[in-house]
Structure formats: structure tokens, C-alpha cells
């Protein structure tokens, strides 16, 4: 399997605070890479840097062989990079259908695509995530779970190669979380996606991820299969604190 995303020596400081420190990893085509770390470890900063929302201080990011380090978010999106947000960020004044239609229009370029073509395509993605019946509802009137699914449909409509999922479990009840995980697995299978999954809930990633990268204080702690990472002492210490063995 070739690497679809390569991150090399990524650094980011906010004033005197080191948010990301010399971080390097790669994501292979078709895999699900879990990205874990305790609160404040720098997970969301890494996602924001990779999606182009904030610039890196140094380091390199390559998407499918193209250096995207200095590209703007819209250029990255057109190259096949899509993301969801930790706290859903819908377009509140737009209907679900309109929100996804914009993604279909502006994501990866399709030849001779009309407005109507994009709307039809958007309908397909809404149906996939189970929001077809809510297509004419304004995004601000959707429930939290529906907003998560709308974000997923919006991301899928850009026809991404790689999808960043930022803490999809946050705010969902166990039933909804279960459905969300199944939906992501289905999307990966049906659309041939590579998934970069940032998650707080370790159990979910152990089930879903092929590999996991763990970070703390912006630096890589461990990388490997879920079993290896979960049993790594440094990772356990980062989550539970020093001296955890005394209480184990």
C-alpha cells in the first residue's frame, strides 16, 4: 500500500506554547489511522494544520505525492482532503440539501457539472447518511446526531481521498455513537476512503483502526497496531498519569 498522506517534522508554536513538536507519520491508502492523545495533546491542532486552517511553523505535508504544506484549505479540499469538526459547524441558514450541494459543486472538480447535477449528487449522499427525509430542513433545526451525519455527507460530497474525522463520538449517546461508527465504516467501504480518525474514546479506535498514532504535548508517543499502542506504557502514563501502576 502506498502512502496517501505524509507528514514530516511538523512544528507549531502558539507564542511560548509548543502545540506540535517534530511530528512525523504517514497514512497508507485505504487504511483507518487512529490519532489519540489526552486533552490538550495537540490533536485538533494537527488536524487544523493538515486541513490548512492554520499554517505550520515548519515541516512538510504531502497528499498523494503533492506537497500541500503551503496550500489553502480550498485547494486541499479539491485535491481530495475533507474533514468533519469536533463541534458540528453546519451552515445554519441553509437546508441540508443546499449544504451538501455546495460541497458537490466546490469539492473535487467534475466536468460539465450543472447546479442540478450537484443537487442530485447531494441527494445521494444525504440518502447514504440517512438524512434524505430531512433534506429540506434548515441545518439549524437538525438534531446533534443529524448534524454529525450532515457533516459526513458534506465531506463525502467533495469526493475525498482521505477523510479526517474529528471526535465523532463527542455529544452522542451510546446508540447514536454505535450508528455513527457503522456509518463511517460503511462510507469507507463504499467510497474507498482512507480515514484519519481523531478520537478520545479509545475503545472505538481499538475496534475500528488498522493502526494508531498516539501523541502527547504535541510529540509522537507511540505508533503501531491498536494492541501495541494500548499496551504501551508511555501511552498509558499519558492518559493515567505517573505512578499509575501503583493503583493498577
Amino acid at each position: 500500500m502506498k502512502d496517501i498522506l505524509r507528514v514530516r517534522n511538523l512544528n507549531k508554536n502558539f507564542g511560548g506554547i509548543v502545540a506540535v513538536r517534530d511530528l512525523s507519520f504517514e497514512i497508507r491508502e485505504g487504511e483507518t489511522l487512529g490519532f489519540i492523545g489526552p486533552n490538550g495533546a495537540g490533536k485538533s491542532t494537527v488536524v487544523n494544520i493538515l486541513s490548512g486552517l492554520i499554517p505550520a511553523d515548519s515541516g512538510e505535508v504531502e497528499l498523494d505525492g503533492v506537497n500541500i504544506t503551503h496550500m489553502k484549505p480550498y485547494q486541499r479540499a479539491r485535491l481530495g482532503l475533507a474533514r468533519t469538526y469536533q463541534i458540528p459547524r453546519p451552515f445554519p441558514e441553509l437546508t441540508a440539501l443546499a449544504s451538501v450541494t455546495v460541497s458537490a459543486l466546490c469539492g473535487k472538480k467534475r466536468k460539465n457539472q450543472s447546479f442540478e447535477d450537484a443537487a442530485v449528487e447531494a441527494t445521494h449522499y444525504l440518502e447514504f447518511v440517512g438524512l434524505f427525509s430531512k433534506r429540506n430542513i434548515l441545518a439549524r433545526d437538525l438534531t446533534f446526531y443529524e448534524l454529525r451525519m450532515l457533516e459526513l455527507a458534506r465531506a463525502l460530497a467533495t469526493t475525498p481521498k482521505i477523510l479526517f474525522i474529528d471526535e465523532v463520538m463527542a455529544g452522542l449517546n451510546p446508540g447514536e455513537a454505535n450508528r455513527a461508527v457503522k456509518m463511517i465504516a460503511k462510507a469507507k467501504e463504499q467510497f474507498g476512503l482512507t480515514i484519519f480518525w481523531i478520537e478520545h474514546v479509545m475503545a472505538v479506535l481499538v475496534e475500528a483502526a488498522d493502526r494508531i498514532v498516539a501523541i502527547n504535548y504535541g510529540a509522537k508517543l507511540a505508533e503501531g497496531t491498536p494492541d501495541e499502542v494500548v499496551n504501551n506504557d508511555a501511552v498509558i502514563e499519558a492518559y493515567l498519569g505517573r505512578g499509575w501502576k501503583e493503583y493498577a
Partner: protein
Amino acid sequence: MVDIELKRERIVIRYKDKKWDWILEPRYWRNAILWTLVLLIFPAVCYFVSPGLINTMINANIYSAIAIPLGLMTIGTGRMNFGPNFYIGVGGYTAALLSIAYGWGPLMTLPFAIFTSIVSALVFSPLVIIARGLYYVLLTLLLPLVFLEVTFIYSDTFKGDTGLFGIVPLVDTGNAKINFLIVAYLSLTIMLVYLLAINKILKSRYGLIMATINDDEDVAHGIGVNINKVKIISFVAASGMIGIMGWFYAHYFSSFAGITYLPLTFMLKILLVMMIGGRAQIFGCVVGGYFVAFLETFLIRYLGPTQPIIFPVILMIFLFTLPEGLFGIWRKRRYREYLPTLHVRR
């Protein structure tokens, strides 16, 4: 017996076994034709009944024609521009100076007025990228005020205190009443063209893209929208359209004074037209334009010296009691339908 029933989105008229439906949706073609006909007939009726009202109608059309592109700019950039009158000044002074210096008529000065408005908008367009919120408001607010100062400092050229006179008039048939009537139709034509063109843009894919910028520009950027390009295009195009109204003012009055159009009072009137009409909703701008112009005329005629106090008080009451504007009363019937308005960030 005729039975009239008001339903959620339509009026149903029944007579014996016959039934007619009249859909109240503002964009429904029959309604658009009906309102256009009313606007077309109005000046002709005024010509015979009360010619003074033609002037009010011209004002209403000009207010609307400034507020409509301002609405496009507001939605397309996701920011509230507090200095639309700067482009009225640019367009107006260009037309006035050229007309006085070379004796050019309105058709000759028009392309130059558009050109200077567009160029000045291009110069200031980085503002929509680098400034947000309060900073954008302050910067755009400063532009017309600085321009006003410039007209005083370079008084030899701009005649800042008295204004420029002797501009070739827009229409000159020799009969003042007919001139007014022609100008009324001309202003109405410009307003309707703006309304139709911008409505077409907002209903298209570009309108939808603008709406995403208005809602959340970071997310829009993340799904592939080139937000800087869209913001600059909507800013520059709308400024050019507003500049045309400056040209219109200069040739309509045959004089142009920055002190009339560049201060805060004129700018506030335009913003109120936009907000009272329907929070940057373009059909609302027409409603707001007519409401403000006719209210102003009515109060000047019947309240005299108290008008400067009563007028803003009434407008403020409307602003607070109708957060969605006058058009919002109508819009609520079809609130699911996409009609972009300014997304008020708290």
C-alpha cells in the same frame, strides 16, 4: 357569494363551483409581474394626481438601487459594509468632474463612473480578506468620511462646501414634469435590473456559495470554496453598481456635493433601508426603500420641524420590533425556502 380564504402560502378565492388560487410566494412569477405593473403605473398616475410623489418615488428607487447591491455585498462577503456611500461619492464625482470639464453627457460619463468605482473597490478589496467584524465596520465607515475631508481639503477641485454645479442633466426635454417622469422610469428600470440580476445570481450556484461564506467562511473554505475570490468579486461588482447610483445622482440634480452623500446621515438611511426591508434580503431592499422614502416625505409634509426626531424614532422601533424586517413578515410563510439574508453574529 365570493368566499376568500387565506391559507398558509396562498389566497383561495371561491365563487359558486369555481376556485382560484393566488400563491403569495414573493418570487412566484405572477406576484413579480403584479408588483412590477404597480411600480410602472405609479409614476404615470402621480403625473396626473400628485407630481410631487414622483420625486419621492425616484428617491425610493435610488435608495433601493443602492441597498440591493449592498445586500449582495453583505451576503457575498459575510460582512456588513458601513461605507457604501464612498462609492456613490466616487461615481458621482467622476461623472460631475468629467461633465463639467469636458461638457460630457450622462452616456459619456457612465463608463468612467463605473470604472473609477470598480478600481477604487479593487484597491480597498483586501479589506474583505484581512478585516473582520468590528475592524471591518470601522475601516469601511472611515472611507466616506476620509473622502469627505478630501473634498474639503482639495476644495478647488471638489468644491467640498458648495458642491459641483453645471453638470449636464440626465434628461432635458424642456418640460420639468416630463423630465421627472422620464427620470422616474429610468430609476425604476435601474432598480428592477439590479433586482433581477442579483436575484438571478443569488438563485444560482454562486448565490449558494455566497450564502456559505455568509454562514461560516472557514467551513466554506474547507469544502473547496475559494472564499477570497468570491468575496472580492462580490465586493467589487456591488461597488460598481453602487457607483452607478452616484453617477445617477450627479446627472439627476445637475450638481454633486460630497456633503450630501458622504456623511453618516445618508449612510445610515441606506443601512436602515436594507435592515428594515429585510436584513439584506434583496426583495426587502425594495420594500425598505419605498417605506423609508415615503415615510420621510410624509413626515416632512405633516410634521415639519419635529420630523428629524420622529423619523429615526419610527425607524428604530421598526428595527427592534421586526428583526427580520418588513419582508420577514412575508418570508415567514415560506421560511424553509432559501432566501439569503445577513447572518447576524452575536
